């Protein structure tokens, strides 16, 4: 048996580096965070070979004084906190005093810095454990950190590095995360001498667009909600702009990028009603709260956080996002800055919106029936006696300006979905508004309207409980039993609010005594287990609501008008008005879009008008 002894400092640093510096991207993240903590407004990153060969970050921040340079490369040395109180209320990105030391332990590092109290810049270099003397250097502002040959002395770790491109991809992602969080800072990313991303300091929304692409910002809405010391702001994409992968998902807590189960669960639930189940929402969200209420000191990489009151954070995020997603078509002002643009030009993101070339290729298919098509379109218009619908002469005038007067209701306000003109193949309703043509999937739209009505009716009332004649007892683990006991001791028993009555029969047995009436035919044990698991993990359970909504969804589907039901113009207009007044009416219950807009510009393009 070898004897127990203290490890050499170098080895300790290398071990610590394993946690902090998992790959070049994590080193980059740490250094960028240091730059931001130093108050920089311009940060540029230059990488060679995906950051493995060289990584150079220069900023214009506060800099490091000469006598602190050596300390900066030493473990547990930091300027960011100095006492436990600071740790509990940490507002800077870093605080552990480990990052630079860890990086230095496994690479050839050089730090050059200019501090305002010095006459000129100073440089210090390290290679593994060995620090050089501090020497004068020519630098007028900020700090340059240069890291070469990452993992040169830890061959085991070096073997785990992926290809240059992969590592660069990770670095770019790390860079993107940082860049999104600080729109007020100018960022530059270079790789192998070529500029990859150049981001000028700007507004948050502009930065999001630059980093995440124009299609994201066109399809996303801005939200900003605060309540009880919590603030959630950022942009979230509409459900129709959903992804197959969880790539465009950025959550920041007090400016720090995190991957938190609680937050993602809340977001997922907010989208649940409008998103197809195997699609993932896209969003950039910033949660701001008193630093004292969140513990970031969970893991060295700091992507995990603990909330002191997880339940209320979960509830707040869910409600803020849910509310924003629910806003009906009629009132976009609070959220979407430009409704016309975001709905109309969303071509690349919405797979259901045909792009211009697709329209072209479709022309062949329609070629043998255009006459009939137009006849229905205009025939309906000319014989329409309803004063609310458009008259035939405006319809034949394709000039959008001339049409500007149509689609106004008596109060002078515009109906966003315009007025119905016809129904095609018993499936789609065509309507025209000031922007052009609106195509509505009538079944999907009506289904959503019915669904929301059913939901609203039930949400308003208490959950009726059906006590069981034969209580169902089941074998439970200690966690489940503890959850039940905890809930029973609370004044507002979460279980009872959900329509459950669960009793503890023995330390390992629970009995379901009552279940919500709506779910009386469901498997009581499975239901109770789901609810308990949710209550334990997230403090709130939507298991009941989810199941109930499934039932309501089916009811709504049966109650909604089916395809091939011929609707009259007043019926179609009523449907459009209902859609405008209904929350989440942009998607059907399954997340499919219910309508889309073809603008006059697009129509003109199709016919090569005005060219």
């Amino acid at each position, binding site marked *: 048996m070898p004897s127990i002894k203290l490890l050499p400092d170098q080895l300790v640093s290398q071990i610590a580096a394993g946690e902090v510096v998992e790959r070049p991207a994590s080193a980059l993240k740490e250094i960028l965070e240091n730059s931001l903590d130093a108050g920089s407004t311009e940060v540029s990153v230059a990488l060679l070979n995906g950051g493995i060969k060289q990584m150079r970050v220069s900023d214009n921040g506060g800099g490091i004084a000469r006598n602190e340079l050596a300390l900066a490369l030493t473990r547990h040395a930091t300027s960011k906190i100095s006492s436990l109180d600071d740790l509990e209320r940490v507002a800077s990105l870093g605080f552990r005093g480990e990052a630079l030391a860890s990086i230095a332990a496994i690479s050839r590092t050089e730090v050059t810095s200019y501090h305002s109290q010095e006459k000129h810049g100073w440089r210090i270099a390290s290679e593994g454990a060995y620090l050089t003397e501090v020497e004068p250097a020519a630098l007028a502002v900020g700090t340059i950190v240069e890291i070469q040959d990452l993992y040169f002395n830890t061959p085991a770790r070096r073997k785990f590095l992926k290809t240059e491109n992969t590592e660069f991809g990770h670095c770019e992602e790390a860079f993107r995360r940082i860049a999104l969080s600080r729109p007020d800072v100018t960022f530059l990313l270079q790789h192998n001498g070529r500029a990859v991303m150049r981001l000028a300091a700007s507004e948050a929304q502009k930065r999001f667009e630059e980093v995440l692409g124009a299609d994201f910002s066109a399809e996303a809405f801005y939200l900003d909600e605060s309540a009880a010391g919590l603030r959630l702001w950022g942009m979230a994409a509409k459900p129709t702009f959903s992804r197959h992968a969880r790539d465009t998902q950025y959550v920041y807590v007090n400016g720090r990028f995190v991957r938190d189960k609680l937050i993602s669960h809340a977001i997922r639930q907010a989208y649940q009603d409008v998103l197809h189940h195997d699609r993932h929402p896209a969003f950039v969200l910033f949660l701001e709260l008193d630093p004292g209420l969140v513990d970031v000191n969970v893991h060295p990489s700091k992507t995990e956080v603990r909330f002191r009151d997880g339940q209320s954070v979960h509830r707040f995020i869910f409600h803020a996002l849910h509310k924003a997603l629910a806003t009906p078509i009629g009132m976009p002002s609070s959220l979407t800055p430009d409704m016309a643009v975001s709905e109309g030009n969303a071509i690349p993101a919405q797979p259901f919106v045909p792009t211009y070339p697709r329209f072209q290729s479709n022309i062949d298919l329609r070629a043998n029936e255009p006459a009939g098509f137009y006849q229905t379109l205009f025939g309906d218009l000319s014989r329409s006696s309803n004063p609310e619908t458009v008259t035939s002469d405006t319809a034949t005038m394709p000039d959008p300006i001339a049409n500007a007067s149509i689609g106004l209701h008596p109060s002078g306000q515009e109906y966003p979905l315009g007025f119905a003109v016809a129904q095609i193949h018993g499936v789609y309703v065509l309507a025209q508004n000031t922007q052009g043509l609106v195509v509505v999937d009538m079944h999907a739209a009506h289904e959503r309207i019915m669904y929301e009505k*059913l939901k609203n*009716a*039930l949400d308003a009332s*208490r959950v*009726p*409980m*059906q*006590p*069981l*004649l*034969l209580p*169902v007892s089941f074998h439970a683990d200690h966690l489940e039993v503890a959850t039940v006991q905890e809930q029973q001791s609370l004044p507002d028993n979460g279980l009872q609010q959900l329509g459950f009555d669960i009793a503890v029969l023995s330390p390992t047995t629970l009995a379901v005594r*009552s279940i919500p*009436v*709506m779910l*009386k*035919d469901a*498997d*009581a044990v499975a239901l109770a287990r789901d609810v308990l698991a949710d209550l334990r993990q997230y403090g709130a359970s939507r298991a009941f609501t989810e199941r109930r909504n499934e*039932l309501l969804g089916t*009811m709504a589907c049966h109650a909604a008008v089916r395809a091939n039901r011929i609707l009259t113009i007043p019926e179609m207009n009523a449907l459009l008005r209902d859609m405008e007044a209904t929350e989440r009416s942009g998607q059907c219950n399954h997340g499919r879009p219910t309508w889309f807009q073809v603008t006059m510009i697009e129509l003109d393009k199709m016919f090569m008008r005005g060219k």
Partner: protein
Amino acid sequence: MNIKINRDTLLKPLSSVSGIVERRHTLPILSNLLLEAKQDKIVLTATDLEMQISLSVETAVGGELSTTISAKKLLDICRSLPENAEITMATQESKIQVKTGKSRFNLQTLPANDYPVMTKAAGATNTVIKIGQKSLKRLLKQVEFAMAQQDIRYYLNGLLFEVNGNRLNVVGTDGHRLSFTSTELGSSYEKQEIILPRKTVIELIKLLDESEEEVTIEVASGQANFAFGDIRLISKVIDGKFPDYTRVIPSGHQNSFTVDRMMILLSMQRASILSNEKYRGIRMVLTENSLKLISTNSEQEEAEEELEINYAGSALDIGFNVTYMIDVLNNVDSENVVFSFADANSSCLVTVENDNNYKYVVMPMRI
């Protein structure tokens, strides 16, 4: 091999046995029925592997035949033939020709030997009960509606038949309400209980008639045999432990009233129109000599029915799933029913006047 038979003689037994034949089956022979003819007798057998019905008809057929034919097709053919048509059936290799007048049908058959006939379980028969067809049918109808349907507690998807001394108890429950009925038997037996599957119960109700003729029920291990008239029904039983119903049936409920069954049934049906279509909740508000039935739905519409009753108990406001109430009122046959309550959170007991053998327990709903 060919036989002759009158269409009307064949039609009735044919439709009786066809009821249990499943339309869609992975085993083709299960959509067939077994047809066996011997000079003066014809026997039809159908099975779904859980239960089997065979029916024999005494009639001169003038030949012998043993084969299996699609139940549905044969039934459809017989049904659409003119009345009293004389049907000739003749097998030719794997086919059978059904002929009458100028109509001819050639149907595929499968060998009779392959037909999965259920036989009486070997070993000693434990119990043989005899009971009139009419009374058995009545017992089943009184409790059948309370059975569970496709519940994961599989033992609730059927009826409990319990023989105890000289009593036969039949119980059905779906976990929310329970229906119990009992009758006296001619002789005394050892205690025994079986759970009869839902499908068997429903078929039995269809097959039993209103006569006083006796049904012989043989209860063997894992199997129950019913013999009445020309019909032999063999059914597997559900292997499970039925919940202890005696603990569920309350006693000593103080607040009770008697009411005309049809009157309260009609009131309930009217009130249910405006009950929430998903909850089906209805409030029963009891005050001295008055019962109000109140229902509201999600559109804030409200129905109120008031009944004059003889009630001297304490005032009570209690909610129920109206479907559970309508079910019991529809399925008992007495003129008056008795409702008994303890308080708004305890179960309600419904009994019929002058008959201690029937009890229905339903849990209230907290609206």
